[in-house]
């Protein structure tokens, strides 16, 4: 029976009460930790790997439609300004130009924010858009607009913004207990302050969209992490019904948090397509992407800790000033301070400062990663002050329950992560590492703890359809942005159906079937979607065995199916599934599943520990990461091959946050000066350290039917802190800012 239940939905630490549709027949038990599984837990190459490697897959930027127009965007050259004049008619007169919209244009769409700015508040903000037969003509149209912009005063610095007391939302106080008194009474105290950089997501496929109307029906190809939220945004903006809008997102060239919903690109393309009656393509060029694609906000954080001589943390006092830009969610920078360790007395203040940059947006583990970078360095400073081993200090302050709610965790294998990481890293030999090797390099080893959510939740749905050839299609609402979650669904479905992997096809990237899946963010796809896939598959398997029972005149309960064969428990029957499915003709066996709610009374988090080994060249200021060990508790690992790809990718982005990536803004002009790929330094293959990965791999028994938590974000969380701690161990110095660029390192070591 289908029922509505009240449940909590979590996304990157934000909880929302929602009604959830639950099918009470979705009652599949979680596989036991020692269950003999044919496919789950074994490495499988991604199902679309060959097509991706051949360059055959079509990303949004590759969509070509008959009669398609190309859009070019006029963006603000200044951090703050007011449009004095804009010659839309001149642009319209350019040969090939079909439509021009500006801040004053009457638009058919309505959104909460104006699409185009008459008073741009950051460099790169869209002011006007031109659609033309070719991109070159559209660009000539933009030039013909002859923008005259009155430049106004701007604020881009954190300190300046704080001084002006200009906030995007009110500062927040998440304190508990009495940190001030506890600090005063502490036997040991330390204080540490850190500036963290603005980090740009830099997906290689920029934000892009192609929109095409057919009467009142809109089809939009959008490079987004959330095709359903893109659909709903377009529905709202144009006053349509859900069924009127189809969003297609088969392949996304990276997102990392930056690509949410329809975005400016799909809204503008759809509006221009409505005006011209032709398909319109809008793709950011690289400079626009780096200016307006988004970024992790720069922060200035201060941490004061108090402890007893035995290492017990007694007081935590943290504040974070966050350079928000024009707005956006205030990501939970202080969550590590509030939740990593047992402590009753915590003061936690956040100041979201408004600056003349684009609104900050999600970048893989938003808030928590930059919070960990500061807080976990402070924990190492405390270990130093206490003369305690840093890992031992962390173990002694292990939090058995969630420190904010007091609720138990659904599962927590952090202590096992510490032990395994220490073993793999050779932590016991950490001090010997500092012995000079005659190469002039200073070596050190540092650790950091990871906490993140990743429990997923409803709503998520899946439909499975088995045909006469014994092949199954799994229809999901997944947009696979490169994480390999379509393949995860293939593994889960094949395991439950008892079919070979190659007999299971998985469909995603299209809202048309209206099988809902969540945004690819918050490490929620695997824990949200896979239980629905398994439930749907279980129903199909049940029906298949019932039909087999009819064919072989045996009770369905006496039959099992594995590797594409149906067998009776007594061994008398052992046939290919097609002996049964072949009788379907053109009929199919269908089953649908939905994700049940998370258990009441538990907090679901992922945990982990990373240990970095670095070599610092004191003459050149170069920090080279030699090795990173990563051990993360994310419940059951479904596909170790794809899982290790996620961990490696997260570590490399975290490493770059520690060493090279920073969006640099000229304080005089307020304009970012390195919004290009040649001077914004993302890692290359030559920067890669040895990466050693392991997991406790203990299924979370409190999560529905698969026992997996999410893995997209956890690996980026502790990397920068572990590297900075290793740097401090190697050099005896600690930098007050990241990234540890050569000039900064030379300054710190001087």
């Amino acid at each position, binding site marked *: 029976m289908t029922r509505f239940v009240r449940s909590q939905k979590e996304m990157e630490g934000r909880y929302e009460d929602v009604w959830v549709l639950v099918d009470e027949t979705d009652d599949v038990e979680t596989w036991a930790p020692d269950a003999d599984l044919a496919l789950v837990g074994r490495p499988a190459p991604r199902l679309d790997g060959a097509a991706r490697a051949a*360059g055959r897959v079509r*990303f949004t930027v590759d969509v070509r439609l008959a009669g398609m127009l190309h859009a070019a965007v006029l963006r603000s050259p200044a951090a703050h300004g007011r449009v004095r004049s804009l010659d839309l008619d001149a642009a319209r007169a350019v040969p090939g130009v079909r439509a021009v919209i500006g801040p004053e244009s009457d638009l058919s769409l309505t959104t909460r924010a104006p699409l185009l700015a008459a008073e741009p508040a950051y460099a790169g903000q869209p002011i006007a858009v031109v659609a033309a037969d070719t991109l070159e003509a559209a660009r000539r149209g933009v030039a013909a607009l002859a923008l005259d912009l009155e430049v106004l005063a701007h604020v881009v610095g954190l300190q300046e913004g704080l001084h002006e007391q200009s906030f995007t939302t009110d500062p927040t106080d998440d304190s508990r207990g009495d940190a001030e008194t506890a600090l005063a009474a502490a036997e040991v105290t330390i204080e540490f302050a850190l500036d963290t950089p603005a980090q740009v997501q830099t997906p290689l*496929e920029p934000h892009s969209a192609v929109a095409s109307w057919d009467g009142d029906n809109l089809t939009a190809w959008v490079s987004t992490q959330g095709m359903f939220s893109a659909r709903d945004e377009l529905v709202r903006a144009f006053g349509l019904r859900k069924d009127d809008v189809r969003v297609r997102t088969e392949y996304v060239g990276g997102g990392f948090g930056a690509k949410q919903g329809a975005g400016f690109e799909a809204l503008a393309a759809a509006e221009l397509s409505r005006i011209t009656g032709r398909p319109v393509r809008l793709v950011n060029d*690289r400079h626009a992407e780096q200016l307006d694609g988004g970024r992790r906000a720069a922060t200035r954080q201060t941490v004061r800790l108090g402890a007893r001589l035995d290492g017990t943390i007694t007081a935590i006092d943290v504040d974070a000033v966050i350079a928000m830009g024009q707005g956006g969610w205030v990501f939970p920078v202080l969550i590590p301070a509030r939740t990593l360790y047992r402590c009753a007395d915590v003061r936690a203040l956040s100041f979201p400062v408004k600056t003349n940059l684009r609104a900050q947006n999600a970048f893989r583990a938003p808030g928590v990663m930059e919070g960990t970078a500061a807080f976990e360095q402070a924990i190492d400073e405390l270990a130093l002050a206490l003369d305690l081993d840093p890992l031992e200090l962390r173990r002694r302050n292990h939090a058995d329950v969630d420190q904010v709610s007091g609720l138990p965790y659904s599962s927590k294998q952090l202590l096992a992560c510490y032990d395994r990481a220490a073993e793999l890293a050779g932590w016991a030999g950490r001090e010997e590492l500092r012995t000079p090797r005659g190469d002039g390099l200073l070596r050190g080893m540092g650790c950091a703890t990871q906490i993140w959510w990743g429990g997923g939740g409803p709503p998520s749905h899946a439909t499975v359809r088995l045909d006469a050839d014994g092949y199954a299609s799994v229809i999901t609402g997944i947009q696979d*942005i490169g994480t390999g979650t379509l393949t995860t669904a293939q593994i889960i479905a094949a395991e439950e159906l008892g079919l070979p992997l190659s007999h299971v096809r998985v469909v995603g990237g299209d809202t048309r079937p209206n099988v809902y899946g969540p945004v690819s963010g918050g490490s929620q796809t695997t824990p949200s979607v896979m239980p629905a896939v398994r439930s749907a598959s279980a129903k199909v398997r049940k029906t298949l065995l019932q039909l087999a029972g009819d064919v072989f005149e045996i009770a369905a309960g006496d039959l099992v199916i594995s590797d594409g064969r149906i067998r009776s428990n007594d061994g008398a029957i052992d046939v290919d599934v097609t002996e049964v499915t072949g009788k379907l003709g053109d009929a199919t066996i269908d089953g649908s599943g939905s994700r049940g709610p998370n258990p009441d009374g538990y907090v679901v988090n992922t945990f982990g520990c990373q240990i970095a080994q670095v070599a610092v060249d004191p003459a050149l200021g170069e920090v080279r990461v030699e090795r990173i060990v990563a051990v993360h508790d994310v419940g059951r690992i479904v596909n170790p091959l794809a899982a290790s790809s996620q961990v*490696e990718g997260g570590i490399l982005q975290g490493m770059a946050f520690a060493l090279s990536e920073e969006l640099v803004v000229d304080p005089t002009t307020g304009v970012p000066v390195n919004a290009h790929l040649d001077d914004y330094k*993302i890692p290359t*293959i030559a920067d890669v350290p040895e990466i050693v990965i392991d997991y406790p791999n203990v299924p979370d028994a409190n999560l529905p039917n698969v026992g997996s938590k999410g893995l997209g974000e956890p690996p980026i969380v502790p990397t920068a802190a572990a590297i900075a701690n290793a740097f401090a161990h190697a050099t005896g110095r600690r930098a007050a800012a990241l990234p540890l660029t050569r000039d900064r390192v030379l300054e710190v070591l001087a």
Partner: protein
Amino acid sequence: MTIALEINGQAYVVEPAGRRLLAVLRDDLELLGTKLACGEGACGACAVLVDGRPVNSCLLLAEAAEGHEIVTIEGLSTGRATAIQEAFVAEDALQCGFCTPGQIVSATVLLERVPHPTHEQIHEAMAGNLCRCGAYPKIERAILRAAGDA
């Protein structure tokens, strides 16, 4: 003005109008496997082979490609997958796959020149191909696998 280009063994007549080779490949010939990611010659997503050398096609004027033999990812992918492509899939040396055609082009040249590359030779040959997903450790393993060294 039109020019003749030889791409993947086929002859094409195109009108470059001052554009880069990449624009001609993608917009005129719909050879869409070659990607535009930066347009600044900084990322390698647009790599194609010109007379057997890897070239960033976003920087090369189409006119300058006349008279040279051009091979794109499509030209490397006719029929069955190459050993490099198979190795990329087996090692999961790709995530979103956007940079992958360029990575395959560069890896193909590397293995033609150096059948058994060292760690350092792989790093040097592949450092011009950015991968934001961070598939690098597995790209290296895939190259070693394709070389028969892993």
